[in-house]
């Protein structure tokens, strides 16, 4: 299929998400759509998929103008989309998910589901493209990598000629990335066109035939991996020269601040997700935990910060066992930048000023007995807005009006502006633009240099490598290894994240002469 987007413009109240976008995807081509979060990639693809109506412009398929009113139209035209957040019904089986919307039916009324027929086709497709999956498994029981394969099978089941993959690697380990690229090559060989949305430069360079860069809703240019370089792409994407290296001096670790011993935590569904975990973090060092999402990181952070009651083990902060209540943990000198900033980090409907005192409002100088001291709060807010460079007309705007980066700065300002012994930052830069990432990384390193113990949890390997003084890899609820980021390679960490242990690591460890504070048995 040859797809052409001509002059697509899409406006939302107050923003122009796409501005006069032109894009051509040739048959059998892998076309990378590169851009930062908020550059308009996903909006553009939602326009293509019939989820949004463009305000201007047209979509041409094989030279003919088409208009899609809903995803059904796009699917009928042969467009398949794998959304960043999977569109799978967790309680359905793989077969049910794949057939949903284009069900095989039988019976006199033509209503009864024909699961065996659908199952047969799924097996055919999965064998043709090496997409291994059990058609009878429930989706909620499958790891994310497999769920993604289900999504791809879903599009092939609908005989799509053009496949849109929206940030497909954000949930995968580096090894799974490679598997996905294999699948993409196989699809390309069978004539399918692929639009590959990403913000990772090396992925675009590695797999794409052509790369189109988007910035602030506009097409900056289209190039090929042969013509482009990482530096050039980065500059096109961000609009200025960027350095992604965090400058930091070697750590000067002091006494142990956080001591986690044989911790066991269950998730909301009662599954054990942290399973006998040991971890220590010392003052003046950053321990970064790498891991694929869903390996217990969320529950670990919630247990340390008192948001979740562990079912076993102990957590000590400065030698004292903590009471599992957020207020008690807070008073013990712990700052927390939560993973989901709108859900757990702030109250979006409250003003910036109110959010900035969300964990100190009950103390002097912000409270006199039961009454809040509005003046004191306002003074503090004005100071922090300035110090932390929060871009807002005033400290009395609701946080929900800020951009993601500025929302995160509000949380960072609140957590970093008081003296703490331990900083726990989960996914501190998720969804932020490069500028904000740089800023928050610098602040985290600054906190370390002040002498705080810092625990960073991230699924982004780049971030883990950039920040870590010690790099811990978490897999299935345990720390499987602790590495020296200067010695370790992404390859090694990737394998550990996927649960396998590369042989080469033993030598690397020996050569690095690491002190293993954390052991994982054996």
């Amino acid at each position, binding site marked *: 299929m040859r797809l052409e987007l001509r002059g697509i413009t899409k406006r939302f109240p107050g923003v122009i998400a796409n501005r006069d976008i032109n894009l051509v995807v040739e048959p059998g081509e892998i076309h990378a759509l590169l851009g930062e979060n908020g550059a308009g990639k996903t909006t553009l693809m*939602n326009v293509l*998929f019939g*989820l*949004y109506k463009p305000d201007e412009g047209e979509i041409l398929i094989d030279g003919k103008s088409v208009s899609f009113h*809903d*995803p*059904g*139209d796009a*699917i*009928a035209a042969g467009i398949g*989309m794998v*959304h960043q957040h*999977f*569109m*799978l*019904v*967790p*309680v*359905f089986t793989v077969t*049910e*998910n794949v*057939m*949903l*919307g*284009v*069900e095989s*039916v039988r019976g006199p009324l033509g*209503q*009864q*589901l024909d699961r065996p027929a659908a199952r047969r086709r799924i097996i055919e497709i999965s064998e043709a493209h090496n997409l291994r999956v059990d058609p009878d498994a429930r989706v909620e029981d499958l790891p994310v990598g497999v769920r993604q394969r289900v999504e791809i099978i*879903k599009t092939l089941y609908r005989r799509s000629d053009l496949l849109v993959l929206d940030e497909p690697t954000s949930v995968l380990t580096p090894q799974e990335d490679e598997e996905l690229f294999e699948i993409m090559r196989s699809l390309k060989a069978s004539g399918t066109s692929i639009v590959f949305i990403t913000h990772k430069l090396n992925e675009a360079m590695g797999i794409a035939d052509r790369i189109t860069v988007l910035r602030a809703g506009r097409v900056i240019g289209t190039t090929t991996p042969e013509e482009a370089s990482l530096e050039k792409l980065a500059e096109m994407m961000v609009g200025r020269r960027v350095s992604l290296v965090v400058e930091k001096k070697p750590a000067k670790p002091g006494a142990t601040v956080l001591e986690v011993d*044989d911790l*066991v935590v*269950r998730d909301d569904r*009662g599954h*054990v997700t942290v*399973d*006998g975990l040991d971890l220590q973090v010392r003052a003046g060092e950053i321990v970064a935990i790498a891991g694929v999402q869903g390996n217990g990181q969320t529950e670990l952070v919630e247990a340390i910060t008192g948001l979740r009651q562990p*079912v*076993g*083990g102990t957590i000590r902060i400065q030698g004292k066992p903590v009471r599992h209540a957020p207020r008690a943990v807070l008073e013990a000198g712990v700052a927390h930048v939560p993973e989901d900033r709108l859900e757990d980090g702030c109250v979006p409907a409250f003003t910036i000023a109110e959010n900035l005192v969300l964990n100190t409002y009950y103390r002097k100088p912000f409270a006199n007995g039961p009454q809040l001291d509005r003046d004191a709060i306002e003074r503090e807010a004005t100071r922090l807005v300035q110090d932390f460079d929060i871009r807002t007309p005033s400290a009395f705007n609701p946080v929900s009006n800020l951009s993601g980066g500025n929302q995160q700065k509000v949380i960072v300002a609140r957590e970093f502006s008081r003296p703490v012994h331990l900083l726990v930052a989960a996914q501190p830069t998720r969804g932020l633009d490069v500028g904000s990432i740089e800023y928050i990384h610098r602040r985290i390193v600054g906190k370390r240099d002040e002498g705080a113990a810092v625990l960073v949890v991230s699924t982004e390997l780049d971030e883990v490598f950039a920040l870590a003084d010690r790099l811990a890899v978490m*897999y299935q609820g*345990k720390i*499987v290894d602790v590495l020296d980021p200067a010695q370790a390679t992404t390859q090694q960490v990737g394998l550990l994240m996927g*649960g396998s*242990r590369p042989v080469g690591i*033993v030598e690397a*460890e020996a050569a690095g002469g690491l002190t*293993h504070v954390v*052991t*994982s*048995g*054996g």
Partner: protein
Amino acid sequence: MTAAVQVAPAVIVDRAAIRRQRILGVVYLVMAAAAAFVLGEGIEPGASSTFLLKPAGSQGGLDIPPLVVPATLTIYLIAGLCAALGAIQLVRGFGSRWTVVLGVVVVAFVFAFLTWAGAGRSMSLIGILQLTVQKALPITFGALSGVLCERSGVVNIAIEGMLLAGAFSGAVVGSGTGNNIIGLVAAALVGGALAGVLAVLAIRYRMNQIVAGTVINILAAGLTSFLASRVLQAHRELNEPTKFASIPLPLLSDIPIVGPMFFSGNIFMYMLFVLIGLIHWALFHTRWGLRVRAVGEHPRAADTVGINVLFTRYRNVILGGIVAGVGGAYFTLGSTGSFVHDMTGGRGFIGLAAMIFGGWTPIGAFLASLVFGFADALQARLSILGAAVPSEFLLMVPYLVTIVVVAGLVGRVRMPAADGMPYEKE
């Protein structure tokens, strides 16, 4: 450090499970004590209880002799059984079979209670069971209505109001036209219309579904009470519908116990059985059902494969309203024969509880409704029997059972993931 990444799993202590186990054990022991010291001591020694298993005055079918048990001995045996199970529960628990044990203890205790209540006389057990099914009928209609709505993601708390409106319009139209089938159709249409209001509020205007449902309940209760006192008082002829007659099914109704319970009812009972089967088949074995469930679980996923989420929800809510309207007509056209204000008495809410207890499935909802129906029937029969329990307390029984069941067992079943959440295209 090199090879063995996996360490032996830490000993997991699930505090919640242990707590539940202890509570259950204590509850069993309390029940044993209650059976032994309250029920066992409260009757004449040597008395026996007689349970009739064949409906009085019924001809044909097999003759089953009444069940006669020595009262004191039976009660003490049951007390012993409860105590033993309680002790085992406390000491080592029953693992995953704890629900079965809970069922055994509850049934045994209820039997002990019946033995006590019937000591020295004869009690129609079959009468209670028949009444159980009759009381369960409207509850099941309500629960099925809930299943239809909530599987598509709309919480329908207005079932109570729909039952009431169905009861009223069934009676009035049935009497006015002199044709109870037209009355039944009118009840269905009124139920569907009220559901249409709910659907517009909840889906189109994305109003809080609990508030929207409550508004409809208040509207239905107020309107029917007002019309009943103002219009029906003056025009008695509008409140005298002919009831649907019972149609005992040949052969099936002759089966002992089961026959009188399930195959001797009127058209409502058979409609219900057909509906249960139909909804079960449709939800779990058809294209229609797969789409409905997808909409209730993950509407955006359904949307991205071209399913019309809002249409699905409208349709299901209105279907649910029709079912509730028919269930409401049972009160006037199937059971009582005339409309009395507030005659549904919270059966719509109990239907919601049955839906939840039944895990949002039609068959589960029916079984759960039977539990509630039994509590209701017990209450009705015991107050006639003049058992030594205050009638006010007996009236509480169905609601108490609802609270215990919902508080104790719910949370173990998973509701449709998008239940109660308005869907908005971004």
